[in-house]
């Protein structure tokens, strides 16, 4: 679906992404991991055309740079790392903005748009706070609002820049589950940047480990997530540390997984 060849991004003289190649096919969820400053987020931005880049970026064999912004948004949706709201838009107004690329120049609100917005709100559990101002939301609710916006936008490829940011554990689980369900429909794929390596193992179908703008290793999860690969990128014994932490976790292990309360009182 997405094929990136020899992608390079520079800011002035600094090379942020260096001749990176990767591809994502239908049904796949590519996890991009790596240390801070490895060029992970920049890679997503380059695909989204928000930073100038060199190299080929093909969506279904078509050059992504030749697509109009509106056409691009119909194919690829991107969720950002963080949003700071400034104006008191309601949750549903922000979600409705996702329909922009589906409307004409003087687009009226059609039945289809309304249905897509309602569905996205329902999926992300925001129905109860749909009329609430985004200024009053918690970080997790804000993050889900923008996830709902993307669902309403209905692209074929999802780019997620640290979707677990701002989210406490139950919501991390919920958001990742939502994306996994979203991927089950044919003709969809996702690429996400994540820091939490356990999320890579749990949800990814393949992984790309980046270091200094290059692909240090990529392929299936077991192929990439070896102790040697991780140590070469992070410069530390990741497995050893993980085991140490999980060892501590064995004592008070919460047995039953907590159900999400309907109105989650986290603010």
């Amino acid at each position: 679906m997405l094929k990136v060849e020899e992608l390079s991004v520079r800011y002035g003289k600094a090379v942020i992404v260096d001749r990176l190649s990767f591809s994502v096919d239908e049904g796949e969820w590519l996890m991009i991991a790596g240390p801070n400053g490895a060029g992970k987020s920049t890679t997503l931005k380059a695909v989204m055309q928000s930073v100038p880049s060199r190299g080929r970026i093909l969506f279904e064999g078509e050059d992504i740079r030749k697509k109009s912004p509106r056409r691009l948004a119909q194919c690829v949706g991107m969720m950002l790392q963080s949003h700071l709201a400034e104006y008191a838009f309601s949750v549903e107004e922000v979600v409705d903005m996702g329909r922009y690329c589906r409307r004409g120049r003087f687009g009226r609100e059609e039945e289809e748009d309304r249905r897509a917005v309602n569905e996205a709100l329902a999926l992300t559990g925001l129905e109860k706070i749909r009329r609430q101002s985004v200024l009053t939301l918690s970080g997790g609710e804000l993050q889900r609002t923008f996830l709902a916006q993307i669902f309403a936008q209905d692209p074929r490829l999802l780019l997620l820049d640290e979707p677990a940011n701002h989210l406490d554990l139950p919501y991390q689980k919920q958001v990742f589950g939502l994306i996994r369900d979203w991927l089950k429909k044919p003709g969809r794929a996702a690429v996400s940047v994540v820091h939490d390596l356990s999320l890579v193992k749990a949800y990814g179908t393949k992984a790309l480990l980046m270091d200094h703008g290059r692909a240090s290793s990529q392929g299936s999860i077991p192929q990439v997530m070896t102790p040697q690969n991780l140590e070469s990128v992070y410069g530390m014994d990741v497995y050893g540390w993980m085991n140490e932490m999980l060892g501590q976790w064995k004592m008070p292990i919460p047995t039953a997984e907590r159900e999400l309360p309907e109105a989650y009182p986290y603010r």
Partner: protein
Amino acid sequence: MKRRTDRLSVPELAGFSAVTLAVLCLCVCMGSVKVPLGATLAVFRDEIGALLGLAERPAGLEASIIWSVRLPRVLCVAVTGASLALAGAAMQGLLKNPLADGSTLGVSSGAALGAVCAIAFGITFPGLPFAGTMVTAVIFAFLSLLVILSLAYGLDDSLSANTVILIGVIFSMFASSLTSIIVTFAADRIRHITFWTMGSLSGSNYRNALVLAISFAVFGGMIFASGRELNAFAVGEENARNIGVNVRRVRLLILVAASGLIGVCVSVGGCIGFVGLVTPHIVRMVSGPNHRRLLPACALGGASFLMLADLAARMILNPVELPIGVVTSLVGAVVFVVIFYRSRKRG
């Protein structure tokens, strides 16, 4: 909470229009000579009748005060207010910055500098004999915006509210002092400095009103048509890009339209500050932040606000008249502090 519609409903629009019309009537009636509403409406009826060739032009002092002096002035004030408020709302959305306005960004001062240059150096455009001042003011307004935004981008990518305002204020002082220098040297040809720094719409005529109305229709129309795009920008420029807005084109369009509105207003009425800052902020409390509702409400609200400010400027020290910008700045500065304080407190 009730669901906000995507556009102003008919009753809402009628409400805003009724307020604006009422303010307009009030401002025509009131002044150093008070004319009762009935008499004013009679003058309106007769004059319009005369225009249509149905009646004689009404004679008398009251009729000429109302029809030849006050009405053109009030119309100019109304359209100026609408234009400045619209430009302010558009820039606040585009930059995701509730403090943005022609005066805080230094665009008005830039436009004034352009107008003063055009008069002092006799800049005219072939084919546009009377529009030299206006076109130069618009061009200077646009260049000011470009300078301020590129300086701000140079300092920080995210274009944070404070950076933009800081650079805007510095630029504004710089442009104002250049304007003062030129006015001092060419005092015989240029209106007094206070006109360019504080604004005045006394002595406006119907031609001015027509020019302002055309600019409002053209540039304002460009802004009205970009409501959805401005919504996306108001959430964030990256957000706009992600949902498929042509970011470069829309940004250019809004910057051109805002410069056009501000430039024309400044060349007719001088710098009238804070209208574009205060109005959207107050209107947003009623209409919400959705620009498809906010923009028309702002235009009507800005017209009402400036007409009232103009009335205050005429009436407070009657028979001495204050520059209109004094009144708007008095109100605006206070509101500015409140907004700034609140936004900083929220963090």
